[in-house]
Structure formats: structure tokens, C-alpha cells
């Protein structure tokens, strides 16, 4: 039985958890262009992956992970955050639990998408490996995403006060 289980695990490896879990998107009121259903799927998938790669970059200390789903200003800022971890011995972890995305602007040329994200996060701060801060919070972000070859990249992710 154990042998059979091992064989099954090798032949059918466990699937990774779905990357879109915890990300919900509303396009009500977005415009002037209609946000097509395929785009909605891309946005939820790529935004979730962007947070995953951000988390990986912070944990591994390797900012190269950001290159996959981050660009421009957001990429540069988070790259510095990752690098600052090395120089300060302070580690930051953003445990993102859920994201409520609201699309607000999608121009006629389809060259960008502006959204708000109301995120449930837990922020953990470690100093030389010791947990010195851990707090759950609701954070609102303004998000600017732009299309690349096969995905949407996060170009701006900026926290703003809750309404």
C-alpha cells in the first residue's frame, strides 16, 4: 500500500495550490473600455502571481524573482526593499490572505489597467531572525498594470488611505 502511494505520488505529483485563490476582481464601473472576461482571468491570475513572486523575493533575498510579474516603478522599489534586507539584517514578510480588486480605469487602447486592491495582510518583521513585529491589517493599494507579451505586469503598487 505504501509502495502504491509512493508510485502514485511520483506519477501524479501534487498540484500546486491555485494561484488565483484569494483574489477577487470586480469590473463594475470600470471603463471606458469593457474589461473582457479573458482579461479578468488574466488579471486575477497575474496579480496573484505578482504577490507570490514578491513573497519569494523577500524570503529568498533574490530580487530576480520580481522580473516575472513586476515592472517599472514597482519593480525598482521592491528590488530595493529586497536588497535593503541584506544590508540591515531586517526581514519583512507580507502574508497576503485576500485581495479584493476593483478595476476603475481601462482605456480604449487597452494599454493599461488601473485598479484598487483592498488586501488583508499580515506584516511580519524579523530582526536577525527574531520576530519583532507581527500585525494583521487591511491595506488599500492603487495598482497600475500594463500588458506584456503573455501576461500583465504590475507597474505601480502604492498603498493609499482607506476610504
Amino acid at each position, binding site marked *: 500500500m505504501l509502495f502504491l502511494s509512493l508510485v502514485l505520488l511520483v506519477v501524479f505529483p501534487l498540484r500546486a495550490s491555485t494561484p488565483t485563490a484569494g483574489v477577487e476582481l470586480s469590473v463594475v464601473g470600470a471603463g*471606458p473600455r469593457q474589461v473582457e472576461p479573458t482579461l479578468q482571468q488574466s488579471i486575477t491570475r497575474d496579480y496573484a502571481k505578482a504577490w507570490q513572486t514578491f513573497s519569494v523575493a523577500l524570503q529568498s533575498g533574490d530580487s530576480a524573482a520580481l522580473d516575472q510579474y513586476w515592472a517599472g*516603478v514597482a519593480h*525598482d*522599489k*521592491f528590488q*530595493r*526593499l529586497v536588497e*535593503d*534586507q541584506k544590508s*540591515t*539584517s*531586517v526581514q*519583512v514578510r507580507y502574508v497576503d490572505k485576500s485581495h479584493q480588486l476593483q478595476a*476603475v*480605469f481601462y*482605456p*480604449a*487602447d487597452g*494599454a*493599461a489597467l*488601473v485598479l*484598487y486592491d483592498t488586501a488583508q495582510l499580515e*506584516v511580519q*518583521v524579523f*530582526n536577525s531572525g527574531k520576530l*519583532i*513585529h507581527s*500585525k494583521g491589517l487591511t*491595506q488599500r493599494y*492603487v495598482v*497600475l498594470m500594463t500588458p506584456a507579451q503573455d501576461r500583465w505586469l504590475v507597474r*505601480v503598487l*502604492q*498603498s*493609499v*488611505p482607506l476610504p
Partner: protein
Amino acid sequence: MKRSIAAFIPGLLLAISVFAADVSVPRQTIAGSKLSLKTSGTGDATIVVIGPGHIVSKRIALGKPLELTADDIADAGRYILILLSSDAEIDKSFVVMPAKPAHVSFVAHPSRVPVAIKNGISGTAYAFDAYDNLVSESLPVDFKLSGNRMPTLEREVVSKNGVAAVSIDSPQREGPVTFQAATGGVIATRIVRVVADEPCTLRIHAEPVGKGIRAQTEPVKDCSGNLVPDGTLVTFTAWDSQGRSTVDASVKKGIAQVNLPAKGEVTVSAASGVALGNTVRLQANP
């Protein structure tokens, strides 16, 4: 005795509050400003500031102001400040708002547009401060479309959610136009090429030459009177006793011309896009 203890307690609390490690933070400040934060207590402490894109960690002497530089608080967003001392671990938070606009990211679309298209030119402007923070508060953005052969068009749009967008009809005349977005004294400029639309009407004439005929258009124009761009295709068709001949010719400097083989009585016509030309009948050289 009870009375003397009661009298002692406020003094004790006062002493604790004076000597307890603490730091005062503002509720909100502007990106790139310098902060001098009051600290209390005695001895040394470690201060950790976590910004959206930057971490500051340093030893400080309690009781002296904690200085944060413009670079330390350059990113807009929520900051966490943690003070670690021998007797306390304190965390506080504050918000950094974007500074005034320093540059505009301006997307003009398309880069080439036919004349007289309703809402044919669109512009989207995102204002950023000197620290690359998106200025998310509402701002008036002035859009201006100007060119040599058109009256200047201006629109003011108040940005919402960090973005201001406008759609403007493309001008009646071809040529390059300047499209600008300006806010807070910052201007971004793009050039949009306005090109002639599809041919509107087509008129041709033909004459016998050598062993056939030569057919030529009059200057081919769009419905606004602009010459169509070089390279626009005109299809000439000739019928004679031997059958039909069709030749595509490109417009050069507004005119397309072609030589067609023909014998005897010939009928010639032309078409380009949705425009059909007149029909010409002539006698080819024998």
C-alpha cells in the same frame, strides 16, 4: 501612610513616562520631506523603519531626536516604525503621501491617425512626483492638441484614481500635431501623425500610347480634401476585344498611373478602397 503613597504615585508615573522609551510619529507626512522625531527614555535603542520600498535600521540615543532623511521616506504609502530598547518594543505607523507632480507619464494613442475621426486621438496621463510615486489625489490636467494647419484644441480633465484621460477628434488636415498633457507646471509632449483617410472620389483619364493605353488618375484625395498617402493602391481595369487586364498601381505624389496593353476600342475604369472611378472609353492605337 495611605495618603503619602497616593501622593507619591503621580510623581512615579511622571518619572516612568519621562524615562520610558518612546518615539513620536506624525500621522501623515509628504514624500521626500525630512522628519525629526522626538524620542524619550534613556540609553540606546535600535530603530527599524519599514517603508513600502526601503528599510532603515539604526542605533539611536534615546532622548535625542531621530532624524529621517528625504530618501528614508521617499516612497508613498504606509510605514512601520519599530523601536527596540532594553525595556520596550514599540511599534507605530504613519502614512507618507505623494509630493507634487514632477513628471507626467503620457500615453497618446494612436501614433498615426486618419483625418476627421471622431474621438480618434486619445491621451492618458499619469502624474508622478520626484520619487516616482503616483499622485493619486485629484489634479487638473490640461490636454492640448495643436498643429500648423488646425486651431488649437484644449481640454481640462480632473484626474481620478491617479489618471486623467481624454479623447479628441482628429483634425481635418493631415500633418504632424503636437499633443501635450500638463499638470502642476509639468508638461509631457507627444507627436501624432495625422494622415489622409481613404480615397473619397476617383477620377481618371486615359490616352493611347504605343501598343496600348496610359491611364492616370487626377490627384487622389480623401473626403477632407487631403492627398492620400503615397503607396495607396489604385486598381486599373481595361476591357478590349481580347479580354480584361487588371493592374495595381501605387499613388505617388497624389497620382497613380499605369500603361495597359490594349487593341481597338478600350474601356478603362479604376477603383481604390471604397472609391470607384469614372469609366473612360477610347480607341487604342491600331
